């Protein structure tokens, strides 16, 4: 593998279609299972709030990394969403083993306070759409700039 080819692979590995497809499959299966665990206890809106907050946090991380590193990252962006969702809902897991919620649990992506946003899940949905949309715009611009640079340099 040439140096330029290796560099290309490293730069674009977060966007590899097969990797993204596998990550998406894992994410959807995991989220369906998590949704079920909340749904049987009549708590669907809690699932939605923490998932949307995780999506927003992931979009922020992806945006910051793209701006700082000048390349998409981390390597598994959709698993980042799942990881952040599990982090955000951690106090619910703690509750299951006997500890009521407390204000300090806001360290888990605002676990307690996020429910008090006016408009609730609808507002979080709008914010998530804006955050993801902004990242996609930024990523699209970055890809086009890379394509123009590669064309100007005469390499693939």
């Amino acid at each position, binding site marked *: 593998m040439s140096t330029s080819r290796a560099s290309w692979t490293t730069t674009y590995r977060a966007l590899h279609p097969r990797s993204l497809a596998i990550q998406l499959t894992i994410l959807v299966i995991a989220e369906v299972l998590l949704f079920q665990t909340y749904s049987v*206890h009549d708590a669907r*809106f809690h699932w939605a709030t923490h998932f949307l907050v995780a999506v927003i946090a992931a979009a922020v991380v992806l945006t910051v990394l793209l701006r700082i590193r000048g390349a998409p990252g981390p390597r598994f962006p959709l698993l980042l969403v799942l990881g952040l969702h599990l982090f955000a809902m951690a106090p619910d897991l703690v509750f299951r083993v*006997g500890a*009521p919620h407390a204000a300090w649990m806001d360290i888990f992506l605002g676990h307690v306070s996020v429910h008090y946003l006016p408009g609730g*899940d609808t507002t979080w949905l709008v914010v998530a759409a804006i955050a993801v949309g902004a990242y996609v715009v930024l990523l*699209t611009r970055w890809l086009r700039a890379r394509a123009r640079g590669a064309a100007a340099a005469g390499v693939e």
Partner: protein
Amino acid sequence: MPAGVVAALMVALIAVVVLLVRPPGPLDDPRPALQRDGLLREGPVLEEDVAGLQLGDRAVILLFDREQPGGSEWEQWRTDVTAEGADLIVLTPGVSAHGELIDVIPMPVPVDGGPPVGYAVIDQDRQVRYVTLDPQYLLNAFEVNVITGAVS
């Protein structure tokens, strides 16, 4: 990832939230954030005798419902929530202390404006430590146990 794929995923997410995450029903709290929030409170301290009900000495679950619950599911729920030593008092609109306790706790008013369906947990010092509407309380005995376990 192409913008079109991301857009399709966002549409799917919007559909899930809009179609599957139901808004508050008639018996729910109009403020979803305050329903079953799992947060202990430092609420008012009740009198030892409230309309003939004796409070104190141990944690008490005051269950509010619009009619006396029954059936095997209820019996299981009652067994579960009292297993650790908490008392359980069922309050329906026909019980004399019902209205006074709603006022002094105070219990939230559901969307339909009728009597509450939910519960309050009073600790052994007669302080209100938890209040929530929960029309599906029979599904959530473990939540009551977490609260009574924390205040006992």
